[in-house]
């Protein structure tokens, strides 16, 4: 198991390097002059340009810049934001916590809801209703869900704050909005996994022992249905990150999504780059976690 983790860490580093490099190449490929981006709406004069070039080391060969970038990235130094004129680390550092809070809350909500729905809606009608609802949730743009929730629960009933990141109450609606589609997908996967598991001969065997249907479900089925769900961890992570860009916009929350969006529309490549590298890092962690979860859930994968 330790070997597996070490191997994962190794390939994780490769992924990180690849992401950093790909993002860097993308940056080089981006049209437009870096100096222009940095100047933004500031004063523009040859001296200032020269100063910027010196400050950002834009005069050195691309290879040197690349190696320098990797070296600094390895040390956690992701450069300075063109747009905000602050170290990228600070920009992201400030905004990381709200996004993580949102993502965790949404993930917990989505997963718990999915588990409950998958286990509870076993009857024919419950299942039909639930699966229709899931289909709708999965197919509805998250911002529509968000807007509707916002107007009902915040504007109409004033139950939750309209916007921002002030306390737990402000987390409820965004987390629900982000979590609902996730719950939709997960419920489908879990239910399908349950159906499959409960059709397997070992489930029949378990019933033949006199187990109640509920025990068969909980003791045998659930764990099997977790396997396909775990393989969705990476997807879940992607959905959380991607979704938070939109959700943060809808709910006016601070966070990485806003930072990314701003950086994307302002061509603030150091920030975009950092977000990509950060996401790659998180991706590596999540996938390692998924692999470990597999090992925990499925003894067949463990090497004896």
């Amino acid at each position: 198991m330790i070997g597996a983790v070490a191997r994962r860490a190794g390939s994780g580093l490769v992924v990180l390097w690849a992401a950093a490099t790909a993002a860097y190449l993308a940056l080089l490929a981006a049209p437009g002059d870096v100096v222009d981006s940095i100047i933004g709406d500031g004063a523009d004069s040859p001296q200032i340009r020269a100063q910027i070039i010196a400050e950002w080391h834009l005069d050195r060969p691309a290879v040197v810049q690349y190696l320098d970038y990797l070296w600094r990235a390895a040390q956690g130094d992701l450069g300075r934001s063109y747009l905000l004129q602050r170290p990228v680390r600070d920009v992201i550092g400030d905004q990381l916590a709200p996004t993580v809070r949102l993502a965790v809350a949404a993930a917990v909500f989505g997963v718990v809801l999915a588990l409950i729905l998958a286990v509870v809606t076993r009857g024919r009608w419950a299942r039909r209703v639930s699966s229709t609802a899931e289909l709708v949730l999965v197919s509805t743009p998250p911002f529509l869900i968000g807007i509707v929730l916002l107007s009902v629960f915040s504007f109409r009933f004033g139950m939750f704050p309209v916007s921002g990141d002030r306390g737990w109450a402000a987390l409820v609606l965004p987390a629900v909005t982000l979590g609902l589609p996730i719950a939709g997908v997960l419920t489908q996967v879990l239910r399908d996994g349950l159906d499959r598991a409960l059709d397997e001969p070992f489930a029949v065997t378990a019933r033949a022992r006199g187990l109640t249907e509920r025990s068969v479900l909980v003791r045998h089925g659930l764990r099997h249905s977790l396997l396909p769900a775990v393989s969705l961890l990476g997807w879940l992570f992607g959905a959380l990150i991607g979704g938070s860009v939109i959700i943060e916009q809808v709910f006016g929350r601070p966070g990485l999504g806003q930072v990314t969006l701003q950086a994307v529309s302002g061509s603030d490549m150091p920030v975009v780059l950092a977000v990509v590298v950060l996401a790659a890092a998180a991706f590596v962690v999540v996938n390692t976690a998924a692999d470990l979860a597999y090992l925990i859930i499925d003894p067949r994968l463990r090497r004896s």
Partner: protein
Amino acid sequence: MIEVENLRVTFRLGKRQVEAVRGVSFDIEEGECLALVGESGSGKSVTARSLVGLAGPAARVEAGTFTVDGRDVRGFAARDWRRLRGRFAGLILQDALVSLDPLRTVGAEITEVLRTHGIGDRGDRPDRVRQLLTDVHVPEPGRRARQYPHQLSGGLRQRALIASAIAGGPRLLIADEPTTALDATVQAQILKLLAERRASGETLLLISHDLAVVSRLADRVLVMKDGRIVESGPTRTLLGGAGHAYTRELISAAGGRRRVTTTAPGEVVAEATALRKVYGDRTVVRDVGLTIRAGEIVGLVGESGSGKTTVAQLLFGLTEPTSGRVRFEGRDFSGVPERARRPIRRRLQLIAQDPLSAFDPRWTVRRIVGEALPRGADPQPILERVGLGADVLDRYPRQLSGGQRQRVAVARAIAPRPSLIICDEPVSALDVSVQAQVLDLLAQIRADDGTALLFISHDLGVIRDLADRVLVMHDGRVVEQGPVRAVFEHAGHEYTRALLSAVPTLEGAA
């Protein structure tokens, strides 16, 4: 103990109704061993599962009389059934390899029965589990209890499954094809174990499609076909003089029939010398040499994983040997580029175990067979040779029955008039009755065309009936070879003897 009259089980599949069991009547007496035989899909499993109320959620079960343990179960609620299960009747499912939860330890599975029925208390359950495993002859029961199913061999798994079925101390044990997926040697051990259970007083309902298996154990036999019981009676009488044609067919399939009409072996068609195949750090085939002459049927037997298929692949030129050489029709067939093999490719054909995946799913039979024939040739005569009518020509493989598919595979293989056909377990996936037909067909083709066959099987009975010569493989090596009769009657190698002794034979047949 159990009385069933006019049992009908119907499945609802969408709008369709499938009548799996159509009016079956029988009863089981305390202490007897009743066998249920019949071909695949005849309704054996459904009948057996109905006895414990597990016919499935889509099933509708109706019966004139249906008493279990003296109680009418027709109005049973879920919890009434639960009380019966495990306690009154233990069920050993058909698919031993997947009937234990792969994510839980064997011990946990057995403990579950104890806990469900409140047998013993927390503290002494591990001991009970150990005892149960010992009862079914699992060595090192303490260690095995902590292992997961995938860590056990097929035989051990089946034993563990039996242990969990008897954990609740049931009076009736229902064993649905308890030996199907197992090697012959392991089969014998499991049958022995079941005989022991029976001797200890348990009532046994044994289900099998293999008459040879049941003949050793059963007091009475019920023969099912198409959801009905076509014949029943004490084992001895039934095997002695079956009235129903279907039963006779089953008996003859199990009893075997020598098909060989020896032809004088011709020149050497294929020749392998000192074949060795290494995958990673595992040597899968070691030093195998073999010669096949025209018109000869060579059997290749051995337990699962002994390297039979790998030898076939080497002969066929699908993989290159690590060392050694294959020659075919006097030319080098290994160590040369595929381009060099191509001109004589058609002279070497293959029939595999699973015909379905051997056909491009988008191709009709016409196209499949057409590919093997010279351009523009009519596929119909060749289909006639394998006993298929023109009506299958425009069907897709999926729309054929297993037997029909294998016939198409044979037709495709013989169409280019090959000098050698490699058959890798060509009948293992088929019903006994269909098996016999395909084997007849192959024997006929050898007789007509003088085509040589390399026939791979783990079923010694089949080899005995068909082959001229046999090679026995064990752990990648050929441990014994020679004419069938010689090998079967005077096996030199102890492994061969083990294999042979495990072959079920029809006991009590006339």
